[in-house]
């Protein structure tokens, strides 16, 4: 694939574009991470994407390699083999599996559109299964803490325009959300902040990450001790005396100094990642972080935003909420939505071996789940809808290839702060590949037909 590079701020001339059958789509929203940068310019030559401007390394990798390792044909398992079949046959087989099962689990949903998520929930209700999204294994604990204490937050533009203090806690945006710091926080120019010089950066992490290296203050917390450190910070804020020399490996003097910085800022923003949700304490860590931010509002303006990973994982929570009242781990086995993380969440359902079939959409649990959960998943009929070959697709009984949201089909997605954005279609999908939305619609119709409705 030929890549064309232009100097910063320049593109091809009108003449050049006409000559080479070149098209540039502007304002494209990137379907990679929760930053949902919407300023990409995608260069298309003869129906193929040849360059992406403004995107980060992930974004480039995505747009320039999206055609690799694609699933192109619907397949069903015949013995050891996956055999290519017609879409109708694959849809029928998938519907049959769902209709025959007593308690299917429908999982994934974070790398697809809200439109597909809506239909996924409808399907789960129809077949009385459990439906869960990947927030179950990323910011599920954040939700659980929010449900206990609330969550003082804002959109990213508030941070860009106002924040003079930024904290990344258990988050390493220079590896995970590459443009987060330049677009929204430290480096961004806002109405009342000129950029890096007007902002203080504090990083709290177990490792001295790349992000930590550019921080004004780096606080190295011992693994699994975030809760202790957050609590010590809250104590320091209240001028309570801390008896120990060090908390979570951090000298008390440093904690007190940081507490003063937090109290003294004009607008502070805490961005937190999986370093808090996946470590010991999980939702309790987030409880402590919310309490800290809430306390800080006595002295100053302070907000927090979770660093959401998949481009539409925030949307998965949002769509689940308006349709079922709950953000993830929703069980329809009684005919109405029930929610009990730790019971109705996918890892728990699988590791207790409760489900008897599964539908995976735009996710690769075989690569990402703990082993016992994977074993349980593979014991039962497995349907996969995905654009790419994945470890999960390789093991599936029915595979239906889909188009990529934001590249080959349109849809809606939600940024990490809840701002909704439209995802554009910039090129055609491979022949025969439908959107997740369309595929789910067909499965739903087929399920209803089989059930005689």
């Amino acid at each position, binding site marked *: 694939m030929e890549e064309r590079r232009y100097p910063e701020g320049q593109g091809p001339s009108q003449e050049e574009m006409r000559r080479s059958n070149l098209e540039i789509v502007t304002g494209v929203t990137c379907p990679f991470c929760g930053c949902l940068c919407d300023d990409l310019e995608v260069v298309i030559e003869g129906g193929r994407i040849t360059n992406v401007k403004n995107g980060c390394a992930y974004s480039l990798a995505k747009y320039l390699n999206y055609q690799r390792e694609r699933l192109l044909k619907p397949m069903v398992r015949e013995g050891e083999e996956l055999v290519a079949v017609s879409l109708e046959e694959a849809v029928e087989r998938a519907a049959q599996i769902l209709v025959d099962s007593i308690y299917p689990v429908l999982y994934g949903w974070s790398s697809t559109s809200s439109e597909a998520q809506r239909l996924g929930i409808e399907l789960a209700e129809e077949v009385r299964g459990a439906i869960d999204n990947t927030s179950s294994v990323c910011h599920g604990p954040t939700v659980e803490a929010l449900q206990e204490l609330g969550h003082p937050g*804002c959109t990213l533009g508030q941070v860009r325009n106002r924040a003079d203090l930024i904290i990344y806690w258990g988050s390493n945006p220079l590896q995970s959300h590459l443009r987060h710091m330049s677009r929204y926080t430290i480096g961004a120019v806002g109405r009342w902040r000129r950029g890096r010089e007007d902002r203080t950066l504090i990083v709290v992490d177990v490792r001295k990450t790349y992000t930590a290296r550019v921080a004004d203050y780096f606080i190295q917390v011992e693994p699994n001790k975030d809760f202790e450190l957050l609590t010590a910070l809250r104590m320091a804020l209240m001028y309570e005396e801390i008896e120990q020399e060090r908390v979570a490996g951090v000298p008390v003097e440093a904690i007190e100094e940081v507490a003063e910085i937090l109290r003294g800022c004009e607008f502070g923003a805490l961005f937190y990642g999986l370093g808090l949700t996946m470590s010991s304490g999980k939702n309790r860590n987030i409880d402590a972080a919310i309490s800290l931010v809430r306390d800080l509002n006595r002295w100053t303006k302070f907000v927090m935003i979770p660093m959401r990973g998949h481009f539409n994982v925030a949307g998965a929570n949002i769509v689940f909420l308006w349709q079922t009242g709950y953000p993830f781990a929703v069980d329809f086995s009684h005919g109405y939505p029930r929610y009990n993380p730790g019971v109705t969440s996918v890892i728990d359902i699988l590791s207790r071996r409760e489900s008897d079939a599964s539908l995976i959409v735009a996710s690769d649990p075989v690569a990402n789940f703990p082993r016992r959960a994977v074993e349980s998943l593979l014991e039962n009929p497995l349907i996969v809808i995905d654009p790419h070959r994945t470890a999960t697709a390789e093991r599936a009984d029915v595979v239906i290839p889909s188009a990529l949201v934001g590249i080959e089909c349109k849809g809606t997605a939600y940024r990490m702060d809840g701002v909704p954005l439209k995802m554009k279609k910039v090129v055609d999908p491979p022949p025969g590949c439908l959107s997740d939305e369309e595929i789910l619609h067909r499965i739903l119709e087929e399920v209803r037909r089989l059930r005689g409705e």
Partner: protein
Amino acid sequence: MELLIRNAVVYDPINGIDGERMDILVRDGKIVDSINEMQAKVIDASGMIAMPGGVDIHSHIAGPKVNKGRELRPEDHLRYAERGGRVRRSGVGYSIPTTFMTGYWYARMGYTTVMEPATAPLETRHTHEELNDTPILDKACFPLVGSNWFIMEYLRRGDLEKCATYVAWLLRAVKGYAMKLVAPGSVETWGWGRGLMGIDEVIPHFEITPRDIIRGLCRANNLLNLPSPIHIHCNALGAPGNFRVTLETMRCVEDLSRGDRPSIHIVHIQFNAYAGSDWASLSSGATRLARYVNRHSHVTADLGQVIFTDTTTMTADGPWQYRLHNLSGNKWINHDVEAETGGGIVPYHYRRRNYVNAIQWTIGLEFALQVKDPWKICLTTDHPNGGPFIEYPRVMAWLLSRRARLASMRRLNKTARRRSILESLEREYSLYELAIVTRASPARILGLREKGHLGIGADADISLYRIDPSEVDPSRDFRAVRRSLRRAAYTIKEGEIVVKEGEVVGVTEGRTFWVEAEVPEGVSKEVLSDLKERFEDYYTIRLENYPIEEGYLRRPSVRRTRPEAWVV
């Protein structure tokens, strides 16, 4: 499809019909004057009253803050859950029901049109996604404009023309229906953790006052000739003594009246009708506000009645919600939106025995009973702030029956009861007046000409309740009337039977109204060029990605307006 409703006792205030026994004819979703009676489906409405489908002018049913409320409160959803059925989806929720439940419950009560009164423009795509998933109801949403940077900057420069043109652009961009101001200016200052109390404090960095914003947007509204007046959640909401701010707000646009149409609508006035100087001395300012409303024609209001129950408060008034969080100790969500607005959510339980809550309860009813002309008010609870809409029939009973009020007052906080004049108010609404405050008045204030009545050409949105006025006295039999109002015998939406005996039997897709306001081309170009220049300095998304395409709305219905004269 044709429908013949026989022998209903009809209350249709817009057409002056007060309890007449008559037939209602429906064809193709409209009220008509003749049908083919041989082919029509017939509903025998003997023993029933008929009203136009209910119209709710102010109810938070969809969008980011409602959904955050759902997230915050799994405990709320445990109060009520419902299985799906042949035509229905399942759902949960009491004060913040899921979208499907919202549609079904409103329809069960005979309501067919509901306004979502606060949506951050930047996030309105989300609001429309939820409205798309709210079945049966016709709906619309009001973009929040009270702390909008473009608006404040135009008004600071005194450029009303551009301000109005920007508003027209915004309504088209986000497919909104009316302007909503929430504590103007105060939500911007909350971006720095502070709030404003009155309407004459200067907003830092923007160098104008809330008064300037209110007047400016009221004039812009008149200039654009929008169907509805500006809807304002007044400054200092929730604070003792705030009735003065409300009076000031109404006074400051007295000269901007536009004939017989109101120029300002005060939302959930109960929350802004507090006299006294602190919580202990809190008393009702309802009488004084009612007196003002009685003497002026440029203002309308909805109640924001409090109901004793556990509910979820949510508003764009971020500073107030932070205060409520500190007052109540309850969990707190805050969500500020760049260059536009903010929001907060706090669960709250209104208790009869609590002095403040009891006073709040009396204020809404005192106001409703002292405003002489029911065309100036609408029944709301500011759902879910004063209480869930599911409880409207309780409010209706209080309006219809002094006995119902006295029954509720028996267990009320004694001091509040002593200090309130409510016990002395003997007025009882007639069913005709009830039809005004739940149908005709909101439809008229909203400028929805096909709603709120049953005249020829109106949308065939009809509710039938099993109440026989010749046998039932709402004053005495308020419990029976309340039961009937909770579950309509029939709800008909655009000619389709959607509810029968309180059960949802048909699910239709409602429309979403939005306003396209015509503006002169020249100024429109200038505003677009301002937007191109500054939008991306203010926002974290591209200007081209801000507008919502009409196709995004499942069933859009545009209302076009044009200025009577473009004179600034």
